[in-house]
């Protein structure tokens, strides 16, 4: 969904600017298209206001950079030194903070292009104006397409959290169905690591917000605590993959694993729907039903453990810990839902 939205944003921006450029037969019109389309790709942070601010700053930097590159293009040594300095500083910044990587690439490429296509004073002004208009179009399209209900910073981060957590839990339970985990562990660990880091990034941002919340907003602080706890429990649920030597034992639990994973997806979707709706204080009706159904599958786990695994496996305790973690997950989700709608 997020990827499709990104495609739509880019395509719409490019189409609008191509239409403007060809309808008005703009000279240097390709700068309007280039700057708008490349800027529309910039998505540094999942927070609406901050992202718009970044787009403005980057648009301004691009405009100044291409003007200066064009101005210096007849002085090859000066141009080389200038582009060397820009490339050095921007590359250092991109390495320090990888979120700035794409804007740095675009700034540099547009600078090279501007230096390579030298124009006189009049056309350089036109180029400057077209780039500014391109920035404005990119920001406008981004603002229109950004879902209004999640323009709130915390809502956006929470939405991102539930989305990335869902991906994380899916990969965990997928690993339990993979019989070749031991042979291809690095491949699966790479996927798991990537999904885990996606959650970590959002949890970090939410904890940063949490540390700034004053004592009066206890509800938000409790919510942030709960979502950190849910992430920790999900990490604990993934521990079984390296504790068990023989993954074929997981066949016994395959149905329960799938049920747990699918129901967890429904739970996270329920929270996301809450965030998308106009009022996020409506009672979350289905969460209780869903956690009850997970608990019933946990009881099914316990039955299988009692009847089979307690005898077959050499380390029954690790399954017991896994069962307890599942119960803790249900408990923390219920607490999260309760605090979500509390005053």
């Amino acid at each position, binding site marked *: 969904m997020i990827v499709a939205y990104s*495609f739509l944003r880019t395509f719409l921006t490019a189409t609008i600017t191509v239409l403007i450029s060809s309808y008005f037969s703009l000279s240097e019109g390709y700068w309007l298209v280039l700057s708008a389309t490349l800027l529309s790709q910039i998505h540094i942070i999942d927070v609406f206001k901050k992202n718009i601010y970044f787009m403005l700053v980057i648009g301004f930097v691009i405009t100044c950079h291409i003007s200066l590159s064009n101005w210096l293009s007849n002085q090859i040594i000066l141009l080389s030194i200038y582009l060397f300095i820009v490339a*050095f500083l921007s590359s*250092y910044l991109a390495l320090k903070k990888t979120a700035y*990587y794409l804007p740095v690439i675009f700034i540099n490429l547009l600078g*090279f292009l501007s230096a390579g296509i030298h124009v006189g004073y009049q056309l350089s002004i036109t180029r400057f104006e077209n780039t500014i208009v391109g920035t404005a179009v990119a920001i406008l399209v981004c603002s229109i397409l950004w879902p209004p209900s999640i323009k709130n910073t915390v809502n956006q981060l929470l939405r991102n959290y539930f989305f990335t957590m869902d991906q994380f839990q899916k990969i965990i339970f997928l690993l339990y169905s993979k019989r070749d985990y031991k042979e291809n562990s690095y491949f699966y*660990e790479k996927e798991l690591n*990537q999904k885990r880091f996606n959650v970590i990034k959002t949890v970090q941002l939410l904890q940063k917000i949490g540390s700034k919340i004053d004592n009066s907003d206890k509800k938000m602080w409790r919510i942030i605590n709960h979502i950190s706890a849910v992430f920790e429990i999900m990490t*604990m649920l*993934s521990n079984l993959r390296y504790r068990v030597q023989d993954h074929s034992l997981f066949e016994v639990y395959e149905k329960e694993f799938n049920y747990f994973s699918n129901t967890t997806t429904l739970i996270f979707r329920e929270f996301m729907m809450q965030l998308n709706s106009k009022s996020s204080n409506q009672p979350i009706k289905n969460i209780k039903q869903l956690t009850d159904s997970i608990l019933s599958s946990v009881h099914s786990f316990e039955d299988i453990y009692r009847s089979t695994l307690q005898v077959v496996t050499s380390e029954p305790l690790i399954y017991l810990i896994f069962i307890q973690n599942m119960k803790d997950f249900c408990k923390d989700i219920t607490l999260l839902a309760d605090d979500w709608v509390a005053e």
Partner: protein
Amino acid sequence: MKNLFMIKRAYTQAFAVFVSILASYYYTIEESYWVVISTFLVMQTTIGVALRQSVQRYIALVLSVSIGTVILLWMKEVFIVGMIAAIGFSVSCYLSEKSSPRDGIVTIPLCVGISFFIVMLSPIIPHSDIVHMRLYNVTLGAGIGIIINLVVFPIHVDKEFRNNLIPIFHSYENYLSEIINLLFREEHAKFENAKKYSMKKLLRTQAKFFPDWVYEFGLSIRFQPGHRHFLIMVERVGQILFSMHHIATHSFDSELLQIFKEPIVNYTENAKNIIHAIVSVLYLKNPVEQLSDLSDEVDALEKTFQQVIPVSLELLDMSKDYILLASLITDMKDFRITLIKLAQSLRSSS
């Protein structure tokens, strides 16, 4: 260390841009910007797979520039050309995002998309020689980029791997101390802040330094098995610590916890010594002390657990405190096994 690496990389890229601008001035006739664009794009590679990724990006550039130029020679209508460029770039961005790359990497679809976009929107009126000219410029630029990437401040994979891991191990050591303090509620008034702070600091260190480029496809065969296995173990240490942190937040019965205090504190001190030793080896120094392999400490924990938990109780009927203590001890056993595996990997490679 990380700062020095970033400065060197930034300098390499900037130097390549400098050289390619001069080369484009003296050795090209038209559209000299393709030299610099090509240099810049082929240098956007990850550690350990520079040559492979550079060549891939060069091939991607050749294809996109050729196809774009041929379309331009054939199609004259400006609006249609613009729309083709828009669709091509949007699709490439979609494919790039769908492949879920890490931050800080120009994927091949994006490379193709950007160059195709620039070709289609270029104001130069195409003529019959333009394909050869553009390909010449792209090749010149790619050659400069690839050579400078390999020759100027070349990246030593092993060294960068070690430099990235050292701060992670330091943060693991601090985090372990914070977890044990939290467990026994040392400095009681500050423990809430400690909980927030330690988790935040660990997450930040991991995100900044974690060398997941080791997982990139095409990493040298020499590094693949050892480094990847090592990284999986390093990441596992972090996960075990998260698990222990969660357990430490539970309010245990204080009398029960006091019984376990001495073996847990002994275990923690010796575990930290092993982490120190691993860090020493990563610094290419020999560890000074004779170290415990934590087997005695783990035995002490298990013995204490067996003494405390009633033997006749079926496991599913255990109280939550007992289950969490069992979970903590299991985590400590996993922590021990993982640290031993890490230490053994280092010993066999040195």
